[in-house]
């Protein structure tokens, strides 16, 4: 069998793909992970391994295809894998961006919700406080003394002064009641608006948190693909979550029993 050769463009594509897929890390980062030495694989060796593995597989299987057909097929397969990888990488990047935006959005919404809640509490306390009875009594007293002084100077009969005073008092009471009603209505409208805003903000916050949770779950998948460490524990979005949870619980129980048995002995 004639040895397979990797074309220059195929090798170039492979090189770019490997470079793109490689985990980038600093020397300091490696030291932190406790690594003192790293194995470095020359690109030519990688190329040779791929060519040799194809060659060996074909030889083992006793297949005797036309070399150019194989090269075309391998090239085609390889390019489609690169395209697939690019699409996946694009999706991963978009998901990570979305996750970042959602986290920012969530924090802005939480701040706004805090602000609205504070505003609502202030409005409620000022509405509850109302006008002071003492202030009204003082106003009534001042009006009464001015009416008495004016009417006695003009020689008006005390009976008429009393009637005038009660009329003024009644008019003032009516006015205050109307003003109070208007103010209460305005305050209530303000409170209702604030309450609706708070409800809406809460709803948005809840939705954002849900979306963020989903983005995080996607993130776990991404991290698993890239070989980075992940949060421990079987994930809720695992299709076999229930079965795995049960099996892991069983393994744990058996290990606890083993320790108990050993402690007894």
């Amino acid at each position, binding site marked *: 069998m004639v040895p397979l050769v990797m074309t220059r463009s195929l090798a170039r594509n492979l090189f770019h793909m490997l470079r793109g897929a490689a985990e980038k890390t600093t020397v300091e980062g490696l030291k932190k*992970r*406790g690594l003192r030495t790293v194995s470095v694989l020359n690109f030519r060796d990688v190329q040779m391994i791929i060519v040799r593995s194809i060659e060996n597989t074909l030889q083992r299987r006793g297949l005797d295809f036309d070399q150019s057909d194989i090269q075309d097929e391998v090239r085609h397969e390889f390019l489609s894998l690169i395209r697939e990888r690019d699409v996946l990488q694009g999706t991963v990047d978009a998901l990570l961006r979305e996750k970042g935006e959602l986290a920012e959005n969530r924090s802005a919404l939480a701040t706004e919700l805090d602000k609205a809640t504070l505003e609502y509490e202030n409005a409620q306390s000022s509405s509850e406080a109302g006008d002071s009875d003492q202030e009204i009594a003082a106003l009534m007293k001042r009006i009464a003394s001015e009416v008495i002084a004016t009417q006695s100077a003009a020689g008006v009969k005390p009976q008429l002064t009393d009637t005038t005073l009660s009329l003024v008092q009644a008019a003032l009471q009516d006015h205050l009641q109307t003003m109070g009603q208007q103010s209460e209505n305005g305050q209530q409208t303000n409170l209702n608006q604030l309450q609706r805003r708070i409800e809406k903000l809460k709803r948005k916050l809840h939705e954002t948190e849900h979306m963020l949770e989903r983005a995080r779950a996607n993130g776990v998948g991404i991290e698993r693909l890239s070989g980075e460490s992940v949060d*421990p*524990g079987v994930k809720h979005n695992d299709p076999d979550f229930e079965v795995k949870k049960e099996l892991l619980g*069983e*393994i744990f129980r*058996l*290990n606890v029993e*083993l320790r108990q*048995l050993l402690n007894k002995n």
Partner: protein
Amino acid sequence: MATTGKNKDNANSSTGASKASKSKGSADTEQSIVWIGMDLGTSRTAIACSNGVRESFPSLVGYPKDIISHKMLGTDVLYGKDVIARRLSLNVYRPLEAGVIKGSGDDKNVAADEAEANMTAARQLVKHAIRSANAPADSLVYCVIGAPAEASINNRHALLEAAKEVIDSVIICSEPFSVAYGMNVLTDALVIDIGAGTTDLCRMHGTMPEAEDQVTLDHGGDILDAKLSELLKKSHPEVSFSLQMIVDAKERFSTVRSTSDPILVTWPVNGRPTEIDITNEMKEACFSIIPPIVEALGKLVASFDPEFQEVLRNNVLLGGGGSQIRGLAEAISDYMDEHLGGGQVRQVEEPVFAGANGALLISKDMPPEYWEQLS
């Protein structure tokens, strides 16, 4: 990645010193825990770690025979391939037998001092495996170790003992189960894990496999070596060979395919290197492990729910170092066709790491509070 004996000793002392300062309170941060899946096999030990480290080495521990060897080797203990390379200067221990630490069971044939020596060697082997993980000195090490399906309480205890010095929290798990978990095959499947000492078979049906779901056979790679040696002594009595030469030949050429190139080895005959054809002996020895496996498969299938027996028969996973025999999956399928009325066997992707990969997945999926309780 090679490290010198001196480096290994340094790594060991730093791990030991840091253990006292470890805080459980910080265990939930990613950096502070390294999860390890370990397949502590009779022939090879494999680890897969959450920090990306994957190592596999022969389960061998060697101590210098005398002061001269000690001076020459410059270390108190050697492991794995180094033991094979320097075996003439070493007292060699292969501390595991049939997947468990030698002398840890109820075997009265193993003397107390021999059992103790094997325990020490096993402890050092586990330490070496954990050091290979390159976990940062101040991180917690949580490890799932695969044990043969039928390992006894004493065997499991010995594993825990061997691990407790260097591992902060350890879980023992059935080896074939961890292979299945790693492949995400949790239901209606049969797993065959061919090791050096044993072949474990395990039936998966969505719950934890129980005793009746698991079978451990004494037919593993070691039996195959013995068979090959016996056949060669008969057919080529003039040839000199050692067990290590048999193992090397098996690792390079093992096959059950009827059509393959002749298997030629160059071994000494009266001190002269001579080319010998061992094709027939190799195929016969490799094939010898198939009938007992299929017989055990048949028992596990026959005792399963009749409605799902066919599904089970057609979903057989083949893993373990011994599964690397060329054409083995197809040969078992063919033998099942003949004797069980059909069957489909497929080989796992990484036979040597399948157990360790599965154990790593289990360790990562295990809730943190479980780890805390077992530490």
